[in-house]
């Protein structure tokens, strides 16, 4: 009997070790080795290659453009994300479930399709083209379209983070605030917003990561004009295609570094959010 039990235990331990080894191997193959490879390659090329790349006007402009697109996207999706989430959870109206489904559409759409749709709407011969043409505003193959598609793709992130939190905290505090005579705005800023702040921060962090990394849609709507409509990811794409691999690697590594920093922020936010949730 005891022999049977100990072989069972030994078997379980072996299975456990095997499973840990298998999963760690999978993660190493898919995530860690690629990271190590690029760090190694850039390190081997040396500091001069890094400084040479990061002082090029095209590269600086690309980073600047990525920053502009990202900041505007975060602001717009942040503000509208809070409003839409609040409407979805707190209001009852016809078409609510439809709105709920529509919010998820960017998850189902390929970024390429989003870019294509923007070209069809705003591009030459597009539905909205005459309107903007008459006013002399260049939408497609310019910054407005790049911001537009990035916002579209990032819409669900903040909403999907805030909705469950709003559902969980319920109406009690908000009702109490309003019965005590606080205005709707006052209640929102003093009661609702503090309750959803970690969810909002988490949504913003996810949005930032997505906006920085966006490629599929901007690939189509930017027109890929070097030094003009080129974001950091588009720079990497062009540099690689033009065999300027050293530059492509350096910019890729910088983006990876920024993203890893962002991930650490995301993880700590999630930690706090969970702590707060278990407390309440």
């Amino acid at each position, binding site marked *: 009997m005891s022999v049977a039990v100990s072989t069972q235990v030994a078997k*379980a331990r072996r*299975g*456990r070790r095997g*499973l*840990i080894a*298998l*999963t*760690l191997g*999978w*993660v190493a193959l*898919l*995530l*860690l*080795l*690629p*990271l190590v*490879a*690029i760090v190694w*390659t850039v390190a081997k090329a040396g500091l001069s290659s890094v400084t040479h790349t990061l002082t090029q006007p095209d590269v600086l402009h690309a980073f600047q453009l990525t920053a502009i697109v990202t900041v505007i996207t975060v602001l717009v999706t942040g503000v509208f994300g809070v409003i839409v989430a609040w409407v979805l959870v707190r209001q009852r109206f016809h078409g609510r479930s439809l709105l709920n*489904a529509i919010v*998820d*559409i960017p*998850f*189902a*759409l*390929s*970024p*390429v*399709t989003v*870019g*294509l749709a923007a*070209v*069809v709407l705003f*591009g030459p011969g597009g539905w909205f083209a005459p309107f903007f043409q008459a006013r002399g505003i260049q939408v497609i193959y310019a910054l407005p379209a790049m911001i537009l598609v990035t916002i579209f793709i990032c819409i669900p992130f903040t909403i999907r983070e805030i909705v469950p939190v709003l559902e969980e905290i319920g109406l009690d505090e908000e009702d109490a605030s309003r019965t005590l005579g606080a205005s709707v705005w006052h209640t929102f800023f003093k009661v609702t917003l503090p309750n959803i702040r970690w969810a909002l921060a988490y949504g913003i962090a*996810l949005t930032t*990561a997505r906006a*920085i*990394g*966006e*490629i*599929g849609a901007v*690939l*189509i709507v930017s027109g890929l004009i070097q030094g003009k409509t080129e974001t950091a*990811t588009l720079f*990497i*794409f062009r540099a*690689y295609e033009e065999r300027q691999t050293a530059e*492509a*690697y350096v910019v*890729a590594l910088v*983006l*990876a570094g920024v*993203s*890893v920093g*962002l*991930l*650490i922020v*995301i*993880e700590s936010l999630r930690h706090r959010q969970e702590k707060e949730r278990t407390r309440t």
Partner: protein
Amino acid sequence: MAVPGAWAAIRLTLITATIVAALNAVMGTALAWVIVRYRFPGRRVLSTVVDLPLAIPTLVWGVMILVLYGPNSFLGRTADTVGITVLFTPLAIVLALCTVTLPFVIRNVQPVLLELDDAEEEAAATLGATRRVTFRRVVFPAIRSAVMAGTLLTFSRCLGEIGSVILVSGNRTGHTLTAPVFIFSLTSQFRFAEAAAVATFLFAISFVLVLATGRLVKQREASE
């Protein structure tokens, strides 16, 4: 759809998406299990590392795969000597897609596993069930819909993914040209109508899958 190469691109995308979804279903469940149930050094780091694909841009993953399997790298040379070419083949597409979708199943299964009471598993074990039977009869039914949701999400993401694929796949028509890259190449030739046809087809599949995922998640929440 009479666009030459369209069906080949859609077929390649559907095949690679199926392979990646299946791999991710198995490995994602295993990873979630290891992260939730086992205690070992590096577990918390592992739990953060699996989220890397959510943070690092997909194109950057593509670049990293190029470096890792390129002719100048150790892994690329080794693979070459045993007769495996990774870059610019369907294998590179599968690798890239596996990387960017790695967290999807884990993040769906993990919360369910955390809430699952291991008393049931212990009861099954005490009653003499082997570990395999316990997993199949006790654990799997509880996490099935979460695994399914993560797998569908993976599949639908694979249908639209371009950033990680475009550099590593080589984009040879009829061979390694996926549907999203095909749409991109059509639009850069200003063939918008044809691009829209392929895009609409992909979107139809993807939208049904996302709706199904939402329903699965709701079902799970209702059953809790």
